[in-house]
């Protein structure tokens, strides 16, 4: 006589699995409270050679480029927002170089990469030379991409204050087939009045209005806000000078100056932070806690 085998119930086992899983999570939570994994100050990139990475990726270069791009973005964001006083961005250029070697048409890696690289400390490594190198690599691979020439012009203009070079690159970008029409006049303006806040404002406005990339628009907006803040600081310094002329001493705080000037509110910068007022000298500057800090070097952007 054959009977059907009665399958044993697994209910207890399922409950056991769930209970053990909960214990595993709990143990991890407790362990992580008192243990931090070792993080070297500067990570190691095992593969630095673009051609080698290209070979190792077989037919998945684009996917490898994406992985390294995410790594570059996370690395940049991690260092920038990290708690360390001295920000070390040593790996940024090698990462971006690898990304663009694996995917030579990764437009955003060249353009964002140059923004990241040129940004001065603590927001970035302050390496406009590397930003130019990266963009030139992009232009070699894709000579019709006029935006790279435009971006090189920006780096020369904004970070290196080399207006002749900036104008040269704007002109070159305008000459590339399909290049923006505003680049040729921009080259002329840069040569004539390079570095003035008005020409800088025009530059960033053109960039913001012509790009289809959200991050570049955000970056241009931030630069425009910085220019507005610089104008506002000039005005506020005039106000404190008038106060000193009347009272023979600088204002002790904003409240005193506001009362003296008849303002209803204290002045705030475009990011919403109060400006810093030095009670000893009466000098107004951007607060270090402001989202717009640090302002670009006055050497590169002259007053109006």
């Amino acid at each position: 006589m054959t009977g059907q085998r009665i399958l044993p119930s697994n209910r207890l086992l399922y409950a056991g699995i769930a209970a053990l899983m909960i214990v595993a999570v709990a143990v991890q939570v407790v362990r992580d409270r008192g243990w931090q994994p070792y993080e070297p100050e500067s990570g190691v990139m095992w593969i630095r050679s673009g051609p080698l990475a290209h070979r190792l990726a077989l037919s998945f270069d684009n996917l490898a480029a994406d992985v390294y791009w995410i790594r570059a973005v996370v690395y940049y964001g991690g260092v920038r927002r990290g708690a360390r006083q001295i920000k070390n961005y040593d790996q940024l250029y090698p990462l971006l170089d690898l990304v663009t070697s694996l995917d030579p048409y990764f437009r955003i890696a060249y353009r964002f990469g140059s923004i990241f690289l040129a940004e001065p400390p603590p927001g970035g490594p302050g390496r406009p030379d590397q930003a130019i190198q990266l963009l030139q690599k992009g232009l070699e691979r894709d000579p019709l991409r006029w935006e790279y020439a435009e971006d090189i012009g920006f780096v020369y203009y904004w970070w290196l204050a080399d207006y002749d070079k900036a104008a040269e690159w704007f002109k070159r970008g305008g000459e590339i087939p399909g290049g923006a029409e505003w680049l040729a006049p921009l080259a002329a303006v840069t040569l004539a009045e390079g570095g003035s806040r008005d020409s800088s404002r025009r530059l960033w406005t053109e960039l913001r209005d012509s790009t289809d990339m959200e991050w570049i628009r955000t970056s241009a907006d931030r630069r425009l806000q910085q220019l507005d803040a610089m104008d506002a600081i000039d005005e506020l310094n005039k106000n404190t000078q008038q106060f000193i002329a009347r009272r023979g001493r600088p204002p002790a705080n904003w409240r005193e100056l506001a009362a003296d000037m008849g303002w209803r509110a204290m002045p705030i910068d475009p990011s919403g932070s109060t400006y810093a007022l030095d009670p000893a000298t009466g000098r107004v500057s951007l607060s270090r806690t402001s989202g717009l800090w640090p302002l670009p070097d006055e050497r590169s952007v002259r007053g109006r």
Partner: protein
Amino acid sequence: MRAIALVAGAVFRESVRDRVPYSMVVFAVLLMAASYLISQMTAGQDLKIVKDLGLAAIAIFGLLIAVFIGIGLVSKEVERKSIYGLLSKPISRPQFILGKFAGLMLTLLVNIAAMSVAFYGVLWLMQLVNPGVELAARAPATDPRLLIAIGLILVELAVVTALAVFFSTFSSPLLATLMTIGLWVAGHFNADLRHFEKVIDNDAIAWLARVLYYVLPNLAPFDIKAEVVHGLPVTLRHVVLTVAYAVVYTGVLLTAAVAVFRRRDFK
């Protein structure tokens, strides 16, 4: 022709019964869904990365199906001794090989079609959730040109399947796996052999490298993923010639498989 269709149907049914393609499709779909999460860290490059990941997933899972099912197509029948029963039926050995190949290609076609539908679904959803996602990309989200890249992946897999079937006719599954994957890797490095004379002075070696370039499968031209994702032009001539190459090369491999299998003694 009917015999080939019967064998192909049996291969397809068996692969469905094995559930291997199902699990891979589920995995591919999960991967593409995961890609959506990953895209949150990509600084506006969601669309490019999801396209890269989707195409790579289709290529990788297709390759795994082609290799791991392909290498067992003939050797499994021999191991299980079911080959005696099969060959006693009115099926010739060439029909058997061609049927096995056609069956696996049908499995691949169905799987890749399922993965492609899921892939387009993810892209369509991205476009729906964030209509601005296309702005930073050079190609539209649900770009029909992606189908050209997927089509060439399928054609490349036909060559890989033919390799697996060929090795399956005379070697063990492990050896067939190693040789198929080895030739797939070599196939993507093949272009280097063509330029060997530029780095080496020895004429004989340079000549040998050139011969190998033409004899080994050249799989790099099948990869147009980057061009499609970046919206770069892919000429019709390239696609047609690459497909023609695959047809001819697959024909060579299947003929060789038939030649080996016809003379094989199963006693």
